[in-house]
């Protein structure tokens, strides 16, 4: 059994500490927004989560392409790790967004481009796991997974564009009073600190989880190989 590398343990601890500081900055340090009030504090974690998750999906797409070219199992493990973590981060971002939208937009959900694309992206990557689940041969599972991430990451931007087009042609009725996804409230310098720190903290948390998940994928692979050996 491989021991957990010291660098990873350090990163684990760092991630927890950073999460604590980011929480303090978002909930206590940053001033309360004048119009929206306390619920605006959701913003710091919401944006950080969504941003990191998007990066993760892009990383998964790239890993998929590299896998198809090199056929190296390691890239498949990286791809799965990225999709899995991003899926959770994105879900958190959507839920946080909903919590914010309820008092501000007066609804949990609107079919705005960002929201719809987020929901569709979640569905694409849930389908991705259902696809992988249905395949026993690990090599084929990796191949199909890579092809589907590729198709998914090409389709999601087009969906976003399609829904935006839909909105520009038809005037928006619901949510026309929306404060814009970013910035009708001017960030004070303290808010900016909290925001940037949250972004940084979640990036570190993502990297930490990513590393752990890749390591787990590796160990999983090893266990499967050992099982085959024993069975023989």
């Amino acid at each position, binding site marked *: 059994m491989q021991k957990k590398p010291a660098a990873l343990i350090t990163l684990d601890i760092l991630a927890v500490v950073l999460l604590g500081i980011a929480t303090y900055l978002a909930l206590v340090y940053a001033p309360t927004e004048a119009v929206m009030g306390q619920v605006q504090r959701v913003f710091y974690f919401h944006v950080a989560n969504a941003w990191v998750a998007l990066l993760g999906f892009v990383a998964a797409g790239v890993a998929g392409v590299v896998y198809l070219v090199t056929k190296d199992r390691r890239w498949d493990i990286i791809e799965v790790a990225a999709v899995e973590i991003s899926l959770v981060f994105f879900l958190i971002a959507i839920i946080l967004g909903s919590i914010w939208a309820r008092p501000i937009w007066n609804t949990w959900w609107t079919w705005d481009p960002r929201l719809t694309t987020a929901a569709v992206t979640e569905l694409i990557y849930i389908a991705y796991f259902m696809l992988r689940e249905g395949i026993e041969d690990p090599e*084929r599972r990796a191949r199909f997974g890579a092809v589907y991430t590729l198709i998914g990451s090409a389709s999601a931007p087009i969906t976003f564009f399609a829904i935006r087009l*839909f909105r520009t042609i038809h005037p928006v009725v619901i949510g026309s009073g929306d404060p814009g996804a970013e910035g009708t409230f001017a960030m004070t310098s303290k808010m900016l600190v909290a925001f940037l720190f949250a972004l940084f903290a979640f990036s570190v948390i993502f990297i930490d989880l990513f590393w752990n998940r890749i390591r787990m994928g590796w160990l999983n692979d090893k266990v499967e190989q050992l099982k085959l050996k024993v069975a023989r």
Partner: protein
Amino acid sequence: MATIEVTSSARPASKPSFIKAVWAVVQKDLAAELRSRELLSAMLVFSLLVILIFNFALELDIKTRQSVTAGVLWATFAFAGTLGLNRSMAIEKDRGCLDGLLLAPVDRSAIYFGKVFSNLAFMMIVEVIVLPVYSVLYNTNLFLPGLLMVILLGSVGYTAVGTLLSAMSVQTRTRDMLLPILLFPVVLPVLIAAVKASNGYLTGTDMSEIMPWLNLLIVYDVVFIALAFMTFEFVVEE
């Protein structure tokens, strides 16, 4: 019949041309379908049932009809389409035909395009029958050249991705259950654009408002035909 001879002549020792190979796959599918008629009849009856269900689910009176016709049509095509795509690939897989096809000394993408064309043909046949039926049942004229073009563009995008994904889903444990789950989220742009453009033609909207949707459909078709063309090899590889 002539079709049999053409199909068998597509397997000579010398490498046939790309177009010939594509055509051979299409002919094989059409000939098989012409004998069994199981795929088309299932798709057709299913489409009519979907329209029947919509009739009661949406109360298609004259007022609602105008705004939802495009949506009902595309929902019908999308559902019937998965049925056809599943069946068309399952036939290949069940009787080991796919392995035979892969052994043929032709480019893998020729097989992909052959399947796309035959799937497209099945979809178009169903659409050509559903449209007049819908027109008669709901007294709406659906034979507008613009609408037919939208239906063609939408069906091309749908089958281009659908053929690739159905080749994947038949090789999994869950098989036909999986295809709609894989297909619908990625084919959503086609459905959005097709519904919007169809609606535009049906309500006689200005061309400048329909144009962006047509462009979107064309962009989607081109991007996904190219993507599927490049990745199909990885899907059928053993």
